[in-house]
């Protein structure tokens, strides 16, 4: 039956869209990063789901089992998780610096300050 067979993927999509929504509608930079990580996690779930075999077990070879899930997506997602945390760390570091430079971590504030500065530069012209 289609409904149950694709339920996982639908969760993936819903999570993805929630992540997107956070990135779009929230002005807070940390919040955006959270949205981003939710978005990324949804992809992890997508990969892991496709590796799953019904009735299988974790791909650690043992005499007792004969059906294993596919290890390849696991490997890929391990890498992807690492990439995700690396990005988050870097993003947070940037947020810290932005906070120091602008005194705010709200997108609107920062844009305003930049616009003001540009206008000033042009006024000097």
């Amino acid at each position, binding site marked *: 039956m289609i409904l149950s067979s694709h339920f996982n993927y639908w969760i993936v999509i819903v999570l993805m869209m929630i992540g997107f929504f956070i990135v779009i509608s929230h002005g807070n930079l940390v919040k955006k990063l959270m949205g*981003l990580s939710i978005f990324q996690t949804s992809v992890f779930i997508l990969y892991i789901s*496709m590796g799953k075999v019904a009735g299988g077990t974790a791909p650690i070879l043992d005499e007792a089992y004969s059906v294993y899930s596919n290890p390849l997506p696991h490997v890929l997602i391990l890498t992807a998780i690492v990439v995700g945390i690396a990005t988050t760390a*870097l*993003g947070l570091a940037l947020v810290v*610096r*932005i906070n120091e430079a602008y005194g705010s971590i709200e997108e609107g504030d920062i844009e305003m300050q930049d616009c003001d500065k540009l206008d000033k530069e042009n006024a000097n012209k």
Partner: protein
Amino acid sequence: MSAHLPILQVILPLLAAPTCLLLGRTQLLWMFTCGVSALCAVISFQLLHTVHTSGDIIYSLGGWSAPVGIEYRIDSLNAFVLLLVTSLSTVVLCAAKQSIAKEVPESRQLYFYVAFLLCLAGLLGILCTGDAFNVFVFLEISSLSTYTLIALGRDRRALWASYQYLIMGTIGATFILIGIGLLYMITGTLNMRDLAQRLPDVEQAHTLYTGFAFFIVGVCLKLALFPLHLWLPNAYAYAPSIVTAFLAATATKVAVYVLIRFIFNVFGFDFSLSQFPLPQIWLALGIIGVFAASIVAMSQHNIKRLFAFSSVAQIGYIIMGLSLGTAAGVQAALLHVFNHALMKGAIFLAIAGLCYRLGAATMNEFKGLGKQMPWTMAAIVAGGLSLIGVPLTVGFISKWYLVLAFIEKGWWMIVPFIVIGSLLAVVYVWRLVECAYFQEADSKREAGEAPLSILLPTWILVFANIYFGVQPQFTVHATSIATLGLFGATP
């Protein structure tokens, strides 16, 4: 050893990056980085030669052959782009020392060189690999180090630009990841060639389409196709000048390569271009991109931003070439990739020289520069002429091939757009020229010529602009072989 060249190409800068941490002095660092990059350039030249004489090189990593393990696959297409990236990075690096010393605080210079090498390694890794997931990994290496590089800029807006790029870049990369995942889901393989073989037999059309859409959007984000270019102008404008030169000359070009590789090799022509109106979308986006970005460029006061927008416009040309889906179109796009790298490299290096002397590059600062920094200004003008597509420069060659490709396809109506688009370039280049040569400097500023270490690489690129404009045999030959390879592989 020569059998290991493909991998050496990538791991040389990759391993050189941590090695940098062991080296203390900046001088030493710079020389080391230059050396590594130069070595890479030599290797890539050798690779291109080998590929042209004896065909594709396949290198299985870890000794595991293709679908099970990861393979490197060098053909005439990526060998060409490899050469472009490595040689431009070498030239840019040569100019880096003084510019970086001026623009980046002493304590962070080390990180500049490390991040630069990582970025280079990432780009080369994307180019070499024949494995779809590996593309993603190396894409992230290069992206992460790019964010770092951009954030090194002095202006606080560099941080903001870097953050924005981080968000957009991550979304782009994740899209690519999703695309690859969906392909994997329906084929069970990650190897590009294996993918190409298995994709035509796939039954799950919807999934394939979805994966394709994700992938294309992700890559287009990376290559800053209009309207996904919004991250680019700020990132280019506020990054350290050398970084701008490097990114403008290489990063988007590699994204174009990925696009070409997947569109033509992995998905195949039939699927990509005939089953749904991708060419039309691209063509429209390309033309709008050219016009919108050029018009915006006209009114910029920050010169780096001006040329950043012009980069977006040039990407539009490249996409237009690809949208044709003919050998001639792809060849024109490839030529423009190469040529645009040359012109933007030259222009941004010259701007690096200006920033070194003046500390900023705005229209105001340009007044009277024609007399004060004649060589630097001449380089910018030469680059600008090339951008316009004046005959005897590389810009002309690519525009010529592009126009020819359109005519061959019979799309007459597009040709005027291309040519009028380059007229728009005249306008913004002219504004610069007018400012620099025909207006007096308003303050009594004493700006001498840029230092030789920046000027020399700049003029190497300017010379290349003219040389490949007058003697385009090499580029034309290499791109035509690359295109043939592409089209031969997927009949």
